[in-house]
């Protein structure tokens, strides 16, 4: 099978509007200025927002999407011809519902006769196809928080098995009232306003918006390019809002991703955990990771990126891949902010100090609202 590499990437998030800005922000955030970083983001609502102003939701959605796609293509140094050969895979939970909210509000205020902007989300794929002038039909995946992770893995498998040559994988999640109020009505949002990954006092999640993209190719463009080793997917039908507290499905998902990569846990440098934020799901994943460590009789570093950008739902797949891979390329694994108190029954704690390394094998774990689990292994070391 072909090897597949991440050869370009881009991200817009609360950390900044470009990848370099995001990594510099992560480097500069420390214990003494972390709260200021949150205050700068949160304004009227506890929400990690992209810091850029737009006149309308429609403009915001498509402007951000266009910028990130073009940045990723430029990062991969693709020619016009290569760009036209990209296959598009996009993952999102809420897609363009923010645009429909805006149109519907205009309708209710008698500004327009149109009750909604669009039915279905196929137009988003159309937009990207026309933007990059690709000949290929786009694939849009919705599986809650594993949406772009699933999109990523499908793209990788198609390239590995020589069905396609190159892919553009996008994760997209922008603020919308339906999602924010929905999580609020389920009482899943943090009241303390601070992400506390795997902390026994964690009181909920904090949503964030981001758009990220990666280019996948069979040829790496530098020695530092991350190779996509394996992925695995499973489903936990315990509850529509929580994972099974025993963490078994999540453990099996990670274990099987490791097995598919033909490696052992000891070969993993760092596990990027999902750490939803809600008590039950946090503990479920903590138990899953604990089981994984006991199964392999070793522990690895665990880090969580949500304290930097919030829970970006369907975009967290590609967004957290872009951020962590770039951190590694810049020589470090970021520590996990917000952690103070371990669960009594759990053996591990997330990384409490930043670690130096520029080579790593990374296990990414994602858990979706409604039961979807997904694990991905990437490496840039031999």
């Amino acid at each position, binding site marked *: 099978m072909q090897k597949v590499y991440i050869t370009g990437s881009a991200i817009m998030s609360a950390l900044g509007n470009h990848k370099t800005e995001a990594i510099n922000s992560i480097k500069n955030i420390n214990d003494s200025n972390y709260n200021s970083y949150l205050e700068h983001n949160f304004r009227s609502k506890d929400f990690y927002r992209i810091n850029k102003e737009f006149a309308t939701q429609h403009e915001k959605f498509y402007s951000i999407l266009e910028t990130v796609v073009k940045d990723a293509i430029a990062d991969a140094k693709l020619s016009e011809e290569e760009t036209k050969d990209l296959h598009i895979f996009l993952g999102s*939970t809420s897609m363009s*519902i923010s645009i*429909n*909210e805006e149109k*519907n*509000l205009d309708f*209710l205020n008698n500004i327009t006769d*149109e*009750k*909604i902007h*669009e*039915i*279905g*989300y*196929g*137009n988003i*794929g*159309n937009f990207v196809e026309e933007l990059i002038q690709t*000949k*290929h*039909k*786009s*694939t*849009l*995946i*919705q*599986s*809650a928080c594993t949406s772009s992770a*699933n999109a990523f893995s*499908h793209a990788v*498998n*198609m390239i*590995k*098995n020589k*069905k396609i040559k190159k892919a553009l994988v996008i994760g997209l999640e922008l603020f919308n*009232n*339906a*999602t924010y*109020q*929905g*999580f*609020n*009505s*389920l009482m899943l949002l943090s009241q303390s306003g601070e992400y506390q990954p795997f902390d026994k006092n964690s009181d909920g999640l904090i949503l964030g918006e981001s758009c990220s993209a990666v280019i996948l190719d069979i040829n790496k463009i530098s020695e530092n390019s991350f190779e996509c080793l394996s992925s695995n*997917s*499973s*489903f*936990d*039908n315990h509850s*529509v*809002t929580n994972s099974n507290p025993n963490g078994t*499905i999540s453990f099996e998902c990670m274990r099987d991703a490791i097995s598919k990569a033909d490696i052992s846990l000891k070969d993993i440098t760092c596990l990027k955990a999902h750490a939803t934020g809600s008590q039950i799901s946090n503990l479920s994943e903590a138990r899953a990771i604990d089981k994984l460590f006991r199964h392999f009789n070793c522990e690895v570093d665990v880090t969580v990126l949500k304290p930097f950008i919030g829970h970006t739902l369907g975009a967290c797949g590609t967004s957290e891949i872009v951020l962590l891979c770039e951190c590694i390329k810049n020589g470090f694994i970021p520590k996990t902010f917000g952690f103070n108190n371990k669960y009594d029954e759990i053996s591990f704690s997330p990384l409490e100090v930043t670690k130096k390394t520029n080579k790593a094998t990374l296990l990414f774990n994602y858990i*979706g*609202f*409604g*039961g*979807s689990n997904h694990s991905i292994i990437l490496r840039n070391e031999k």
Partner: protein
Amino acid sequence: MYIHSTFKQIEEIKSVSHYKKQLKTLSKINLRRSSKFNIIAVYGALKCLDDISYDENLSIYMASEYGCTQDMLKVLTQVNTKDDMVMPFDFLNVNTNNVGFFISEALNTTGKNINITSQDLSFEKAFELAYYDLLFKECREALIGGVDESLDDIIDNNKLIHNLENKKTKDGTSWIFISSQKTNAIAKIKKLEIYKNIEELNADLKTICYDKISLNQYAKKYQSDLDINKELILEQKDEFYGTSSAGYIINLLTYNNELLHISLDSKNRAYLFLFSKL
């Protein structure tokens, strides 16, 4: 790759309570506050696998062209009122992974479970993802669905969708179960190809023999450009809904021998499915 069972139910718009009564005959799963979209999806998936043995690890690929439209409209009204409150179950219903959860719960499965959309070709895309996952041995069995609600009660809905013949849209739930095992199969999937344009499709059509052919709405519109035997075209019943191709393929599979389905999108990109009845 083989097809083992199919199910479709495509009806004029009906109420949630109608479908809830229907589902109760099959399953005790509690969908009391769930949406019509979820209920018809679960019903279709259960009917497709009725009396069929399947792995717990079955992977599920559900396509929808329009998504859970009724729930979305409800939630939009809720967020845009003064109180700005969304009811928890309404939010959950808009989150389309909800439907994946209920299908997985009803079938008791733990395999991959995703929702797919792709303008004009949502079911075809879902079939493609499932087919390649089986081919790449990412899974052993796959259940592929096409689910969409009727949009007839949404004013001017035809301005927002591709409904070339201005047909009434139906409530539709159509499912196909496939695996790599031949035993008990009803048809073989001989070929699945994707083409960037009609010229590429026609070049391949010259090499394919078939006894019956079905077309999606765009292929029907451009049939004069297709290098096909027009006399073998299956005249489809009035069963238009968002993921109609699922229903058209299931209708096609009631015929014998070599069966061909072609779907085009608005840019004339094409999907070709060739089946051989067993």
